[in-house]
C-alpha cells in the first residue's frame, strides 16, 4: 500500500484595520449595538454607490509588501452574485480577475522538538490576495433569524496560498505566521474570536510521488485554530482511508462540525453556485502610484523570522528569548528602544522583557496579557534598571524586588529602590574577604574545578556569599574576590 501525502491550500480572510468601511465612511467596529454602524450604502439602499477607502487599499498593498507580492499597475472590481440575507446588495464586491496582490510567500515555523529548540522553517507561496467586503451577521432563533449589518462592508483581504501545505500543523503555523506579520505591520489584529481572521481549507490527498492533484474537499468558515487543525486532520484521515479502501474522493464542499468532530458533504462540484461574476460598473480600476507604494514600503517592519535570526546573531540572544520578543512586534519595538537607550547589555534587557515584563503583563491582565500600549514601564526605565544592576548599584535580587513596582508605576529603578530602602551597602572589604574564604573552604571540589578552568563553577560560591551578605554585596566584587582567593589557595 502506498504512502499518502496531503496537499493543502488555505484561503485566509483577514479583516483589515481601518476606521471606516470598504466602500463608504460608516465606521467599522466590533460589539456595537445592532445596526448602529450602517448608512444608506451599507444597507444597500436603491441608488447608492460605492467609493473606495484609501486606507483599505493601502492596508492591502502593505500586506503585499510584507509577503513580497507584486502590486500590479492596476487592479479592478468584480461582482459576485448570490442571494443571502446577510448580504445587503445580494452581490459581493470582490476582485476575481485582477487582485491587489499577486504571488508572494510566507515563512512558517513548525514546532521544534522542545519549546527551547527552533523548529523547521518552510516557505509557503501565495497565489494572490484580493480585497472584498464582509457581510452582516445572522443570529438564528427558534422560529426566525435576525440580521445585523454592522459588519457588512468591513474591508476583508482574502489571502490565497498555493497548495504548498502538507499537514494540519503547517496550516496552523501559516495562520500564526500571517497573524504575527499582519499584527506587526498594524494591518490586522487577526483575532479569530472576533472574526477578524477566518479560513477556508482545500484539502486533497495523493500517493507520495504523484505530481498531479487529486479531487479536493473545500472546507468553509473554519473559525478557530483548533477548528482548522482538527478539520484538516480529519479530512486527511478520511480521504486517505477512502483511497486505501478503494473508494473515490469527490470534489466537493464540506462542512466542519466541531461538536461531532467530523466533516460532512455540503454540496458537490456540480451543485456549486453560479456566481455570475462580472466587472463592477460602479467602480473604476485602481491605479496606485508606484512612488506611493515605495512610501508605504518604508513603514513595513522587518519580517518576523528575519528579525529573530538577526537578534540571535547580533545580540547573541537564545532562541527561547527571541521567540518571545520577535513574535510580538510590540515587544520587539520595546526591546529596540531599550537597547537604543542603553546599548551595553542587550541580553539582560531581553531577559527582563521575556521574563519579568511578560509575567507582570499576565498578572495585571488576569486573562491574557496587558496591552503594551498601557504598560506604564517605558523602555528607557527598563534600560535604567539594567544599568543599575551592571553598575553594581542594585543586585539582581533587588532588581527583582523593584520590578513589579516599576511595571505598575513607570517609576525609575532608583526611585523605587529608594522608596523600598534597597541599596547595595558600601563595601566592607574585610567582612567580604571573610565570607569568601569561608565559602571556598566549604567547597573544595568546586574550587578545584575553577582551578582546572571551569569558570562556571565559580557560581556555586557566589550564592552562599550573597546569602551571607543578605543580598547586599556587589556580585561583581564577590566574583573578583572569589577568583583571587581560589587562585591564591593551593589545593589540599
Amino acid at each position, binding site marked *: 500500500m502506498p504512502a499518502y501525502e496531503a496537499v493543502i491550500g488555505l484561503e485566509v480572510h483577514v479583516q483589515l484595520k481601518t476606521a471606516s468601511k470598504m466602500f463608504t465612511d460608516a465606521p467599522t467596529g466590533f460589539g456595537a449595538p445592532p445596526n448602529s454602524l450602517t448608512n444608506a450604502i451599507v444597507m*444597500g439602499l436603491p441608488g*447608492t454607490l460605492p467609493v473606495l477607502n484609501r486606507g483599505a487599499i493601502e492596508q492591502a498593498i502593505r500586506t503585499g509588501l510584507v509577503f513580497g507580492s507584486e502590486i500590479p499597475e492596476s487592479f479592478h472590481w468584480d461582482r459576485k*452574485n448570490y442571494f443571502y440575507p446577510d448580504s445587503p446588495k445580494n452581490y459581493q464586491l470582490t476582485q476575481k480577475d485582477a487582485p491587489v496582490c499577486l504571488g508572494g510567500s510566507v515563512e512558517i515555523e513548525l514546532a521544534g522538538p522542545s519549546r527551547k529548540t527552533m523548529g523547521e522553517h518552510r516557505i509557503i507561496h501565495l497565489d494572490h490576495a484580493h480585497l472584498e467586503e464582509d457581510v452582516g451577521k445572522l443570529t438564528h432563533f427558534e422560529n426566525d433569524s435576525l440580521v445585523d449589518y454592522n459588519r457588512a462592508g468591513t474591508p476583508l483581504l482574502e489571502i490565497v496560498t498555493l497548495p504548498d501545505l502538507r499537514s494540519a500543523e503547517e496550516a496552523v503555523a501559516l495562520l500564526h505566521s500571517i497573524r504575527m506579520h499582519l499584527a506587526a505591520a498594524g494591518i490586522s489584529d487577526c483575532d479569530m474570536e472576533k472574526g477578524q481572521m477566518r479560513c477556508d481549507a482545500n484539502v486533497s490527498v495523493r500517493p507520495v510521488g504523484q505530481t498531479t492533484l487529486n479531487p479536493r474537499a473545500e472546507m468553509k468558515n473554519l473559525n478557530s485554530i483548533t477548528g482548522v487543525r482538527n478539520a484538516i486532520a480529519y479530512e486527511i484521515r478520511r480521504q486517505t482511508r477512502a483511497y486505501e479502501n478503494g473508494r473515490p474522493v469527490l470534489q466537493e464542499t464540506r462542512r466542519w462540525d466541531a461538536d461531532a468532530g467530523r466533516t460532512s458533504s455540503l454540496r458537490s462540484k456540480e451543485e456549486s453556485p453560479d456566481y*455570475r461574476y462580472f466587472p463592477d460598473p460602479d467602480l473604476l480600476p485602481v491605479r496606485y502610484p508606484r512612488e506611493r507604494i515605495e512610501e508605504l514600503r518604508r513603514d513595513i517592519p522587518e519580517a518576523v523570522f528575519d528579525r529573530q535570526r538577526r537578534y540571535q546573531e547580533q545580540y547573541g540572544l537564545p532562541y527561547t528569548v527571541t521567540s518571545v520578543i520577535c513574535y510580538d512586534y510590540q515587544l520587539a519595538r520595546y526591546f529596540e528602544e531599550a537597547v537604543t537607550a542603553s546599548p551595553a547589555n542587550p541580553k539582560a534587557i531581553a531577559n527582563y522583557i521575556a521574563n519579568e515584563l511578560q509575567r507582570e503583563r499576565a498578572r495585571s491582565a488576569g486573562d491574557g496579557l496587558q496591552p503594551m500600549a498601557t504598560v506604564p514601564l517605558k523602555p528607557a526605565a527598563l534600560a535604567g534598571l539594567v544599568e543599575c544592576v551592571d553598575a553594581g548599584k542594585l543586585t539582581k535580587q533587588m532588581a527583582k524586588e523593584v520590578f513589579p513596582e516599576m511595571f505598575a508605576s513607570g517609576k525609575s529603578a532608583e526611585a523605587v529602590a529608594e522608596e523600598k530602602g534597597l541599596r547595595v551597602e558600601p563595601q566592607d572589604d574585610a567582612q567580604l574577604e571573610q565570607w569568601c574564604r569561608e565559602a571556598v573552604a566549604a567547597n573544595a571540589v568546586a574550587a578545584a574545578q575553577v582551578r582546572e578552568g571551569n569558570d562556571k563553577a565559580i557560581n556555586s560560591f557566589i550564592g552562599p556569599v550573597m546569602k551571607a551578605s543578605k543580598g547586599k554585596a556587589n556580585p561583581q566584587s564577590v566574583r573578583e574576590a572569589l577568583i583571587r582567593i581560589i587562585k591564591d589557595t593551593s589545593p589540599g
Partner: protein
Amino acid sequence: MNPESILETSAFELGRALHDRTLTSVEICSAFIQQVEAVDATVQAFLQLDPGSVLEAAAASDARWSRGKQRSPLDGLPVGIKDVIAIEGAPLTCASRILEAFTAPYASTAGNRLLEAGLIPFGRLNMDEFAMGSSTENSAFRKTTNPWNPENAPGGSSGGSAAAVAARECPWSLGSDTGGSIRQPAAFCGVVGLKPTYGRVSRFGLVAFASSLDQIGPIGRSVEDVAALLDVIDGHDPLDSTSWPDPSESASEALQLDHQPGVIGLPGEYFGDGIDPEVLASVNRVAEAYREMGYEIRPISLPHTDLAVPTYYIIATAEASSNLARYDGVRYTRRAESAANGIDLYFQSRGEGFGEEVKRRIILGSYVLSSGYYDAYYKRAQQVRTLIQADFLEAFRGVDAILTPTTPSPAFRLGEKTGDPLSMYLADIFTISVNLAGLPALSMPCGLSSAGLPIGFQLIGQPFAEGRLLQIAKDWESAHPFTARPGPVTRAS
C-alpha cells in the same frame, strides 16, 4: 401674469419674473398644481404630488427672494422628478410594486443640487418599472398617455417626465436615460430632452437600472431651459466613483457665446429602411435647414450601428440582473406574506413584486452572465461596445455633432407593442448607441406628423461638449421655433 400664461412661459422666463418680482413662487406653483388637477386624470403623468409641501416650499422661496437671499436665479421654480431619483423623505417607487411603500431616507446628489439652488421638487413622475421600457406601460401603477393624443404612448421610460412637461403640468423635469429613456419620450411628446455625457451628472441616488449606461438629464420646452437645469445638477460628485473628475463648462454660458456654424454628420446607417417616411422627411428638412444656416452637412458612417441593440440588451440586462438583486423582501422592499422560509422569501417577494418586463430582463441578464455563456455574450458585448464607441470617436474627428432621427416613428399606440418585447426593444434603435458610447445627445421637436403627433430629431455631441451641442440645437430652435402645442386635453377648462 395669469395662470394660463404662467403655464406657457419657459422656466427661464419664469425665473426672470421671480427676479423682477412680477411673479411669486407660490403663484407659479399654484398654477402648475391647478393644471395637474385639471389634466392629470387624463395624462396620468404623476404617481404622487403633495401640493401642501410644494406650496410650503414655494412660500419659503418667496421669503428668500424678498430678503434678497435667493439661492439661485431659479429659486422657487418647481421641477418634476422621475420616480427613480431619490429626494429625502419622498416616495421612491420606481413604479414598482416591490418598492410601493418605500420612502427614501437619503437624497440623490442631483436632488440635493436642486434643493441647494432653491428649486422645488414637484411630485413623482411615472415611468416604466425600474426604467425598463419604451412606453411607460410597464408602470405598476398608472398608464400615462401622450398629451398629443391619449390613445398614444408617451414613450418611455421617462414617459411621465416628458408628458408632464408637454401637458404644462410642470415647467421642466428630470428624467433618466439608459438607452433613450429621456430622448425617446421627449420626441414622442414634442419637448426637448437631454441625455448628458456619462459621468457628467452624479448617479448617486438614481436607482440603478444599468450602471454603465444610466444618466440623469433634464427635459424642458426650450434649449435654454434644458441648459439651465443641466447646470444645476451636473458636476463632480465624490459619492459617485464614475463621476467625471474635471469641472464642466456651464451650458447656459455656452449658449450666450457667439459661435460659428460647424459640421454636422449624417450617418447613413440611421436613414435606412424601416423609418416612417414622415420622420425621414422631417429630419431631412432639419438637415437642409442647418445647411441654410451655414452648417456643412457631411455624410458619415457608423459601421457597427446594427450591433447596438443586441449589445445594449446584453449589457443592460446583465447589469440590471445584479442591480435588482437587492430587492428581496429583507431590508426594505415589500415582503411576500406567504413566505415560509428564507428561500421562499426571495422567490415569492420577487415573483410578486416585479412586473413582467423586469422579470424578463433579470432572467435574460442572469442568462448572459451565467457560467459557460459569459464570454459568448457579456464579454463579447463589451468588446463590441468598444467598437461602437470607436465609430463615434472616429466620426467626431470630422464633425461637431451627428444628426439622426430620435425614433423610427412618431408615438405608437398604447398596447401596440406590449405583447412583443423584441419589437419594443427595436423602438430604441437610434438612441441606444449613444449610451453605449457614453456620449451626450438631445432630442428636439421638429414638426408634427399628419396624425398630429410630434416628430423629434436627435443631435449627438462629443464627450462633455454639451455646450457646443446645445448651441447647435439652439440655432435650430431660433430659426424654427416649435410653436405647436398639445390638444384640448391639456387645457384647463
